[in-house]
């Protein structure tokens, strides 16, 4: 691959010694250039792995005082009291999981529907307009979304959506009585929903576009309605890819710090009621790290980071694994 140029053009042309010398010089330069380019590129490519290892090492290193003091009990302990130097991540893990899954539960179906609309329903002119607009949604910085969330979305959620949900579904503990401010786990979930929709929608649109047309036409020819084509052909062939896309969206939601900090209200209790305040791992780090002074406080915040990193890597690796199996199934089917 590198450095082995066996091109006739470099062979000495005649008996002229100068030509030969020039050619051999050129050959040396090219061998050096090829080797250099290959080496630099290979080094750059290793950088990704190096950064990941460094991140893992530095996070665990930073967290080590807390890890050795609290151990695995940290994961389930629900007290977080910097004044008494007692830390536990239970509430935060709960808040992270609940807010992200609610976001996925709302955003997933909407995003997949958008994917279906863009790939199968929309005429190409409409698709050309709506597709970039949906991707624009992903370009809104989270801090702006969070700011909008506090001032515009939260009051609306508190005065309209939450009472409505409470009136109709109040028998489910999730939809308890609304609080006085709109800062709640539910509002945070809505913001996360807005953030993950474009991710899942654009991936699933591409997936749906890749479903072979013969299969869809075959189903239509057998008398299937449009929905039945989707239900019977499109979704089953792309199921694993859509799952992978949802996991990517979930990973994004789990790790979002800023927008969640702004709207979730930094609660410190585990509540079944979505309309109460809560907190997540990432939001707690963003909230307290700049002001943390004691060593144990900082180390515990790093411990939160380690947990977040592990959860994030698992969801990401799972998405990659499912996605690859999907690629494999595709290539066999072809």
């Amino acid at each position, binding site marked *: 691959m590198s450095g082995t140029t066996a091109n006739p053009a470099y062979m000495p042309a005649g008996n002229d010694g100068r030509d030969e010398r020039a050619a051999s010089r050129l050959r040396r330069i090219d061998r050096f250039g090829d080797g250099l380019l290959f080496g630099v590129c290979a080094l750059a490519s290793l950088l*990704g792995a190096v950064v990941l290892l460094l991140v893992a090492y530095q996070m665990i290193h930073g967290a080590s005082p807390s890890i050795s003091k609290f151990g695995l009990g940290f994961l389930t302990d629900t007290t977080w009291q910097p004044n008494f130097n007692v830390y536990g991540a239970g509430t935060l893990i709960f808040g992270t999981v609940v807010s992200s899954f609610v976001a996925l539960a709302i955003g997933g179906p909407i995003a997949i529907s958008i994917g279906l609309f863009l790939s199968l329903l929309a005429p190409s002119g409409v698709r050309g307009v709506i597709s970039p607009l949906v991707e624009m949604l992903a*370009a809104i910085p989270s801090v702006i979304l969070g700011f*909008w969330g506090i001032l515009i979305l939260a009051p609306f959620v508190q005065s309209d959506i939450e009472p409505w949900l409470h009136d109709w579904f109040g028998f489910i503990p999730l939809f308890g009585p609304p609080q006085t401010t709109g800062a709640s786990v539910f509002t945070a979930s809505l913001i996360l929903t807005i953030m993950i929709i474009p991710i899942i929608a654009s991936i699933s649109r591409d997936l749906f576009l890749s479903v072979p047309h013969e299969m869809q036409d075959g189903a239509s020819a057998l008398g299937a*309605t449009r929905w039945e084509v989707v239900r019977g052909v499109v979704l089953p062939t792309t199921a694993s890819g859509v799952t992978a896309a949802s996991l990517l969206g979930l990973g*994004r939601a789990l790790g979002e710090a800023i927008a969640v900090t702004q709207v979730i209200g930094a609660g410190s209790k585990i509540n079944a009621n979505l309309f109460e305040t809560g907190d997540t791992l990432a939001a707690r780090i963003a909230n307290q790290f700049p002001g943390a002074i004691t060593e144990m406080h900082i180390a515990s915040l790093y411990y939160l980071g380690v947990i977040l990193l592990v959860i994030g890597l698992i969801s990401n690796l799972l998405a990659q694994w499912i996605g690859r199996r999907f690629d494999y199934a595709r290539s066999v089917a072809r």
Partner: protein
Amino acid sequence: MSDAGFDPTAPLTASGNLRRRRVVSRFAESGATIAAVVAVAVLGIVTYTVVSRGAKAISLDFLFTGEPTGIGPAILGTGLIVLLATVIAMPIGVLIAVYLTEFSGSRVSGFVRSTLDLMNGLPSIIVGLFLFVLLVKPTQNLSGFAGALALAVIELPLIARGSQEVLLLVPSSLREASDALGVSRWRSVLTVILPTALGGIVTSTVLAVARAAGETAPLLLLTPAPIGTTFNFNIFEELPSIPFTIFILSEEANPEGFTRAWGCSLVLLSAILFASLGARALLARSRARMTR
């Protein structure tokens, strides 16, 4: 889907079932359409709010001076941090893309792509914490440089994957022509392949910049400077930035601060939206040119 009661000799007329199936189908179609409308509406509402509220704050003084109410220093800070991040991330990203398309076997490239995707999935706050231990803790010095490195880590996988996709689009006939002329690999990469793909590489870089410019979490940890009244060009000191300013002002319950935050949001959002819209248009053009 069971065909237990299937009768091949039955007349081909619509049964009552068909109407129900059509209704279900119509229902699903309108559901999908509504979902798309909702997403676009949310984008519209957010943009409208930012524009209508931010416009009140915008003035020449607001943009270009460091008066108590101006955000000039923050614009400069964001510009410096993002520029430095891009200067670091772009060459490395392009080299990775070259490695993936020109040099590596499928197994190695699978591994590299997998690490890039994992990097892309790192929560930005983790990137911030990482650079805090790596740079800030040993030197006891919060700096715009640390923030820029964090943004470089965020940009790198985006640039690498984007450039890789563009490099894959370079027609193989160009590579073959170059090989047939006896041009060595490094010359053909530098003089044929990269120039052909340049438009696409620039586009994916711009998209990565648009993403990084709005990141707040790493800046909150690494360079949390309030806007001063003076412009600061020293990247080894704490630099103010637009996203961090929005964050700080949004945490204070101060109506005047809110107006300024909307102003900052308008500046940031319009820069990002224009950059990514423009980049997308360029990408579509260069893609069309290369695949023609």
